[in-house]
């Protein structure tokens, strides 16, 4: 033990540590930009610790501490406790239904006292990553079997389901990112293809007139049958598949999508998705809205794309080289709601323009590629799956968050990793990354 303690830095990937530090630094800078008011003594406020950026700095300090502890820990610890922590995480999530605290309309928080709150769904990402890695690294597991694939999917989707039940749609969606890790481990590519096709079909349903889309789908099916008529003659099952696919597609487009939007989603969610493709959603058709009206509540009617509009204005006004540090009027005027958390990217986009955004995104991309490289150099399946999970979670967060601020994705509450203000978010990503670094440092060991 003692020898290891001396060489705690041995084998640690300093590139990732540097990228981590840069990103956290940028994060604090961005929060400072959002909070800054001209005429105030920012140094005093900074040292006073009352402002968000000084709080974030304190969080960063705590995270450094936690990171050190993780690096000091034995990597066997993570494999050993993987299943246990997963169960613990699930139990915590279940507990929120009983002792949960209501913050901003979602009962997904547990009060820790002293003004700190814990969001189990956030922590559960780490546990799920560990649990998935643990499961996939089981020695006698054949991942090409349907059964083991289903169990892996189950491990991932259980916390997602619980998060959805807590009305944390954003967090629930994050668990979908584990499919990337599973894909790397041999999940059939068809699942990804089908998933992407489904997504494309839903978007098409929203954009294109239903009748035209139905005709288009029918035409595609007809052309396919014509092209493949030889094969069909030989194999009649092909025809069946094409017809079935066509029927499912039309069914989704005709009935499933409207049903989901009118009955499953809340009115505001439907609106956000519609507004992401540039359309208005009529809330009077929404079941939730109807029941709200029936219950005597006001119900919502007006499409509200204020957030995304202001966010796009902020980023767009940055131009090529940006408006300069602390010069952005959108940021100074607090036009973008939740700018220090979910919309933090806008302050960057406004102040530093396209150049700044591109460099920033390159740092992220570099981090992701670095993690994938690290993953591939692992000898143990556990480390590799875990590394891919980390990369996928980070990627999903970055992609969804940035796409949301530039109007490519509906607005859901997903933080920008290491940048957005918030202790639990920063802590979660710190823990995720530094566990990876610990595992990587011990890559010579074979972990099970």
């Amino acid at each position, binding site marked *: 033990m003692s020898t290891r303690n001396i060489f705690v830095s041995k084998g640690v990937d300093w590139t990732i540590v540097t990228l981590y530090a840069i990103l956290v630094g940028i994060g604090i800078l961005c929060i400072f930009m959002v909070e800054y008011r001209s005429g105030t003594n920012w140094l005093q406020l900074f040292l006073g610790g009352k402002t968000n950026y000084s709080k974030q700095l304190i969080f960063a300090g705590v995270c450094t501490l936690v990171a050190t502890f993780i690096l000091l820990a034995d990597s066997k610890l993570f494999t050993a406790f993987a299943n246990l922590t997963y169960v613990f995480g699930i139990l915590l999530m279940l507990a929120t239904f009983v002792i949960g605290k209501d913050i901003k309309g979602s009962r997904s928080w547990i009060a820790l006292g002293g003004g700190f709150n814990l969001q189990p769904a956030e922590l559960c990402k780490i546990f799920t990553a560990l649990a998935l890695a643990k499961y996939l690294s089981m020695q006698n597991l054949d991942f090409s079997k349907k059964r083991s694939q289903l169990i892996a999917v189950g491990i991932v989707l259980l916390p997602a389901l619980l998060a959805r039940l807590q009305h944390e749609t954003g967090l629930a969606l994050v668990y979908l990112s584990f499919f990337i890790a599973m*894909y790397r*481990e041999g999940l059939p590519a068809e699942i990804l293809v089908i998933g992407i096709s489904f997504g494309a079909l839903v978007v098409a349903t929203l954009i294109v007139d239903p009748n035209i889309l139905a005709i288009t789908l029918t035409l595609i099916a007809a052309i396919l049958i014509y092209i493949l008529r030889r094969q069909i003659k030989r194999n009649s099952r092909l025809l069946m598949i094409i017809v079935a696919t066509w029927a499912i597609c039309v069914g989704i487009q005709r009935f499933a999508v409207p049903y989901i939007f009118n009955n499953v989603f809340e009115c505001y969610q439907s609106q956000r998705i519609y507004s992401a493709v540039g359309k208005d959603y009529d809330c009077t058709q929404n079941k939730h809205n109807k029941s709200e009206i029936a219950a005597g509540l006001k119900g919502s009617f007006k499409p509200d794309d204020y957030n995304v509009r202001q966010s796009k204005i902020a980023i*767009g*006004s940055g131009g090529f080289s940006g408006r300069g540090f602390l010069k952005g*009027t959108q940021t100074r005027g607090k036009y973008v709601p939740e700018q220090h958390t979910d919309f933090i990217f806008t302050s960057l986009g406004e102040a530093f323009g396209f150049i700044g955004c591109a460099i920033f995104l390159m740092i*992220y991309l570099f981090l992701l590629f670095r993690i994938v490289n690290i993953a591939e150099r692992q000898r143990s*399946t556990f480390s590799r799956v875990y590394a891919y999970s980390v990369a996928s979670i980070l990627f999903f967060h970055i*992609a969804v968050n940035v796409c949301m601020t*530039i109007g*490519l994705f509906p607005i859901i509450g997903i933080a920008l990793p290491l940048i957005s203000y918030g202790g639990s978010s920063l802590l979660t990503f710190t823990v995720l990354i530094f566990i990876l670094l610990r595992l990587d440092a011990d890559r010579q060991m074979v972990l099970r």
Partner: protein
Amino acid sequence: MSVFNQSRSRVVQIIFLLIFVVILIQLINLQIFSSKYKLAAENNAIYRKIVYPDRGIIFDRKKKAMLENTISYDLVVTPIESKGADTLSLCALLNIDTAEYKKRMREIVFKYTAVKPSVFEALLSQELYAKLYENMYKFPGFNLTDRSVRTYPFNTGAQVLGYIAEVDTSFLRRHKEDGYEMGDYAGMNGLERTYEKVLMGERGIKRFVRDNKSRIQGAYENGMFDTTAVAGRNLYTSVDVEVQQLAEKLLANKIGSAVAINPKTGGIIAMVSSPNYNPNDLTGSARRKNLGRMLLDTARPMFNRAIKGQYPPGSTFKPLGAVIALDEGLITPDYGFPCYGSYTNCGVIVKCEHKNAGHAASLRLALANSCNSYFSQVFRMAIDNPEYHNSTLGYLKWKDYMNKFGMGTTLDVDLPSENKASVPDTSVYNRAYGRNRWNSCTILTLGIGQDKMTATPMQLANMMCIIANKGYYYTPHFVDSIEHEQRDDTVYLAKYRKKHSVIHTSDTVFRAVHDGMHDVTVYGTASAIKVPGVEYCAKTGTAQNPHGKNHSLFVCFAPKDNPKIAVAVIVENAGYGSTWAGPIGAFIMEKYLNDTIAADRLEEVERISKADLIPTAIKDWYVKKENQRQAKIFLEAEAAKAEREAESKQSTNDEEENSEKIPLGSEKNIEQLEMILPDNKNSKSTLPANKKDSSKKKSTNTTTTYMIDDNKKWLVKKSKA
């Protein structure tokens, strides 16, 4: 297994890369190719505040402010940004209904487009401003802007000072390069208009950064793009507020005008046109109502008769006729004419007030007695001057003199739309009588200030100045100096500092005229009119006109030896010059020269002020207007009553029959009332037209009263036809 799926690592990396490329493409699209976001950000965050400078103040000769500035607030709306406004609470605050709100919005959008800020409610009261200010966050697109508004501490000089009003689209078109914007105020009349550029100053623009709740966060770019407001410059006029007030008081309840000029400088001391109005009526929230009322008023309170009213000068012209003849060398001060009560040399008879022999034995006597025959003769001598061969040329020479004296030309006073009145051109007579078919006899009554000659009160006052100055004048003007005078201001003031020498006759010539005019005040027509402690010269006039009773005219200057003030007064349809115009002129001189009115004469001031000389036609118009108003109120009350009854009856039981009958009944009421007030419509159409004539006085008709000869009368009529 890891080896087996190694290739998928590339796929994952490609997926990562792909999404990042999509993000970058969208970023390029947003940040580099769309300029609208930059604009949107500016519209969001930059609040341009126009800083209106204080308008210049107009002072009188004793540095008393004739008008001042106070702050007033406007509610301004940019319709396109007002989508989310809490209409109901705004309407409740402004005390209007939503229909009115929508109507105003439509009007604003129609008139000024939806994207420009336009005034929604102007000139808010203090209380309303406070209420709105607290609630502004509810009304996006609405703003409160302050501006300075005029107040008039002396309630005087309305027509001279003019008024300021919001600029309209046609004004903006005309003044494109002057940088006016919708909602600006500009001088629309009087001195406010003439000196608009001096008074307006320069507007400043301040840019602020505001936040999402429209709270100001600080200056934009540390005020780098701000321009400071430069206050308008003050005007120092020659007006004496107290004299002006007195003159307005004396002319109250009359239709007429008075102008007093300092002959030494040309500075106008007082200029009154009656009826006039309280200038404070055209500021504040009642402005629109008052303006509408005044524009419709048949007595035309907005019409400045002092520079636009055309009156036959009558006998007040005689001193000028004498001066012209003297200057041409046609007569000497000793020239006399035997008059026995009328002038008969032309076949027509021009009556004279005096019959006793020798009342026109010299110029001095003729002036003192206002002998019509004498001046008819003098006029004829001027026209038939052998130097000019024929009467047309003689007339042209005479007209030239007249124009030099400022008659029949605009004097270029610093008020807009001055009228040049009329000294007819030869073409007018050529048309009336035929070329070379008229002579000094045909136009004889020009010599006693009648015929087609008209003059504005200001021209008459200016004529007095020339005579008082013995041959020169300064163009009448109000503004003596401008604060911080600049080179550019010569445009305004240079012309008022130039001495116009009209004629260079010897002093003796003018002394005869002065003496004659002085005699008028000693034993002549104005002998009853005194100015305590001042010897003055005057000439009364009683001008015949086609609109009823004679106009009462009076011109004078004082003191006799060192003239400091020249006055012209006209009271329409008031009879002899000495009865009304004379005393008014005397009081104006007294006030100016003695600085006060003698205590024993104050009663007389009150008597004149209260005397009601408004022609009956105009009074009738007022009565009818009032009747119409009363009738309207009565009918509305009746209709409301009928409606109420209808409702109550309807609610009892019989539905259809009653509801039909009662509105019919109320219509009958209207008919009955219209029968009670029979000539509503007539009076509306005829009277204003009638009045218009009387103030513009195309005095062709005047001649007919003199022309006893039937043939000539017929000639005149024919020419008119």
